[in-house]
């Protein structure tokens, strides 16, 4: 007990020395507190984000694997790819029965022409035959980007590109643009997705371009046989905001890829139209022996929704168990996008971690050196204390207690200062990381000749054509960390303080144990 009393009295009497130690520990504590808070907050943000993330995934042909197989087996890559078909809706629905799937959404997309409806375009299309023909005057349309393969497989079906892109949904949840708020009904209302009525919504631009309004009808035709048409009633007009670079790319490539020319309807209505064209299709064989059909081709895209990453991962396993071949892959653009959004926060955490180790190494070294000087300065005191019978281990304990008390006081003060500073410092660090990341992306885009546009998602090799051209979403980085100094951080700080004291004291202990009182006192005398 007297050791602690003596330690306390020594701290009081040697203020200068202890204030110096306290300042060093304070600097270590503040830096460590900031680093630990940033690390902890980054971890929490990552975990929370992942917990709240609604993950969607799709099953697509694993082209990279097929190419690899072709290389390994010496087969033609085209043959390999053509041997694998996209999954049918029925197959997709089979895998949707996995317990891991929260919801299964699907869409049907087809490219069609219009009768007396012009696609929104910057070019003057009034002279073009396709938009002035009657259904009975069916001819091959000459829209920009013709001969575009539409079934996503480069397969046989319809190979002509229409003016409009019609998307049929089976569920409101599948209408991601409306769900996310990117698109909004500005007039009328959305159609009933469960209905098989020929109803649709069109963009404000398309409505204005053709002087259409809610309640009007539009006639959509099969580009390969314009005598086949369906009349759709407009139930609503929508506005959209698009920041996607691929929209711009698609707009230049084809009018059907212009978001203004997208027509939304129910899955059943569009499927009914496609089925009608199939029933009445003309099938011919070309010079290469390949079958050509005039039937309207639709691309079915299935999206599986999951409650968690674990469910998503379990689904990949379930699908294989349920018979999904090796030529297919389960992928999630949400997860990839989320992981992308974490890059700055992860870099900030890495920087904080590095800072922590540097501060601990430098601060610890200074503390050890300072402690060596301290003990050497107090050599005579050690000599006297041991000469009057105080055991060396008790002298060492007293010195450790002094250092520990000063360290703990400085750590408590440092935690307070660190807690206050951690929020602005972490936000500043994160901002610089985001800026660095954006600069990197910008430079990458410039290298591709598309300054100011994101290249994210533009190269998805295994994704669907929609991923490749349609939905290259901008990455939404986490911009605030809200670094919190919680009990876990405080616990870690205390552990750091105790460890630092331990290492610095170890030197003191070694010195004290080496000192012999007779020698010290003789030298002094």
């Amino acid at each position: 007990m007297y050791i602690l009393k003596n330690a306390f009295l020594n701290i009081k009497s040697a203020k200068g020395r202890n204030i110096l130690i306290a300042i060093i520990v304070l600097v270590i504590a503040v830096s460590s507190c900031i680093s630990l808070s940033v690390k902890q907050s980054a971890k929490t943000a990552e975990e929370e984000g992942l917990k709240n993330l609604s993950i969607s995934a799709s099953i697509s042909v694993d082209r990279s694997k097929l190419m690899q197989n072709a290389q390994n087996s010496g087969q033609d890559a085209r043959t390999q790819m053509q041997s694998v078909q996209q999954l049918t809706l029925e197959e997709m629905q089979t895998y949707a029965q996995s317990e891991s799937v929260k919801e299964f959404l699907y869409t049907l997309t087809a490219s069609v022409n219009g009768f007396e409806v012009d696609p929104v375009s910057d070019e003057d299309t009034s002279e073009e035959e396709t938009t002035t023909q009657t259904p009975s005057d069916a001819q091959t349309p000459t829209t920009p980007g013709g001969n575009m393969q539409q079934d996503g497989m480069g397969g046989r079906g319809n190979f002509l590109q229409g003016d409009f892109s019609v998307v049929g949904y089976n569920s409101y949840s599948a209408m991601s643009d409306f769900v996310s708020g990117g698109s909004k009904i500005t007039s009328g209302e959305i159609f009933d997705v469960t209905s098989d009525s020929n109803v649709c919504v069109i963009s404000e631009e398309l409505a204005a371009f053709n002087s259409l309004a809610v309640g009007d009808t539009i006639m959509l035709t099969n580009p390969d046989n314009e005598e086949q048409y369906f009349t759709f009633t407009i139930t609503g007009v929508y506005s959209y905001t698009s920041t996607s670079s691929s929209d711009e790319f698609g707009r230049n490539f084809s009018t059907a890829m212009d978001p203004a020319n997208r027509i939304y309807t129910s899955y059943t209505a569009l499927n009914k139209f496609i089925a009608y064209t199939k029933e009445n299709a003309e099938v011919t064989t070309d010079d290469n022996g390949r079958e050509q059909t005039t039937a309207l081709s639709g691309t079915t895209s299935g999206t599986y929704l999951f409650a968690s990453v674990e469910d998503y991962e379990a689904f990949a396993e379930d699908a294989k168990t349920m018979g999904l071949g090796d030529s297919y892959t389960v992928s999630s653009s949400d997860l990839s996008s989320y992981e992308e959004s974490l890059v700055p926060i992860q870099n900030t955490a890495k920087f904080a971690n590095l800072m922590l180790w540097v501060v601990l190494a430098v601060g610890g070294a200074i503390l050890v050196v300072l402690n060596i000087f301290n003990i050497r300065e107090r050599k005579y005191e050690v000599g006297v204390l041991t000469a009057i019978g105080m055991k060396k281990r008790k002298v060492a304990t007293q010195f450790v207690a002094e250092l520990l008390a000063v360290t703990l006081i400085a750590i408590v003060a440092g935690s307070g200062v660190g807690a206050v500073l951690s929020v602005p410092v972490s936000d500043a660090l994160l901002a610089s990381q985001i800026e660095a990341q954006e600069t990197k992306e910008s430079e990458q885009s410039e290298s591709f000749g598309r300054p100011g546009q994101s290249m994210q998602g533009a190269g998805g090799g295994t994704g669907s054509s929609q991923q490749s051209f349609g939905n290259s979403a901008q990455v939404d980085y986490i911009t605030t960390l809200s670094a919190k100094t919680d009990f876990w951080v405080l616990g870690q700080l205390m552990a750091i303080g105790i460890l630092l004291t331990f290492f610095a004291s170890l030197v003191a202990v070694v010195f004290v144990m080496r000192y012999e009182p007779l020698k010290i006192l003789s030298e002094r005398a």
Partner: protein
Amino acid sequence: MSILRLENLSFSYDSRVQVLKDINYSFEKGKVYGIVGKSGAGKTTLLSLLSGLARPTGGKIYYDDKDITKIDRYRYRSRYVGVIFQSFNLIPGYTALRNVTLSMDVSGKKIPNKKAHALEMLSKVELNEAEAGRKILKLSGGEQQRVAIARALSYDPDIILADEPTGNLDLGTQEEIINIFKRLAREENKCVIIVTHSPEVAKNVDEIYSLAPLKAESAGKKH
């Protein structure tokens, strides 16, 4: 009965330079002893051996018939002997009072109201409360000597060892200090051993042991 007994005590530095050889002394309670001798005779070395700060290289030291090498030397120093060093060896940053109370704490003896006891010890060596509250560096040589004596007495050891206790003091103070030692032996039944080369001190002790330097002998030297 002797409280401290030396039996063929020898000491050499680094196993080569012999300082003490076959010393056989006996010390009793209630007496003041003087150990005298010329410089280099080994007086301070003997005091270091008696206080447990050094270990004999030959022979034995018995405290109360127990070999002191068998007793924990820290316990021996903190409880059974009180040492008054020639250069006092007080902690300069502490007050006189704290130097004394610290020794009591270190001894581990149950001493009620240590502060009052320390002040009493200091008053015995004629230091008042104001002087007791001063830091060592602010005390004169004589006052520091008194603090060293008070510290040595504070935990009531059986033996008081003093190395040249009057070496730094004027004649008047020397006399006062010698009187304190005499009183300790007579009234408190302590065994007081004073290492000195002062004839004044030597005149006032009960028994004298005389040490002579060994004639250029060394332990390892062949004869």
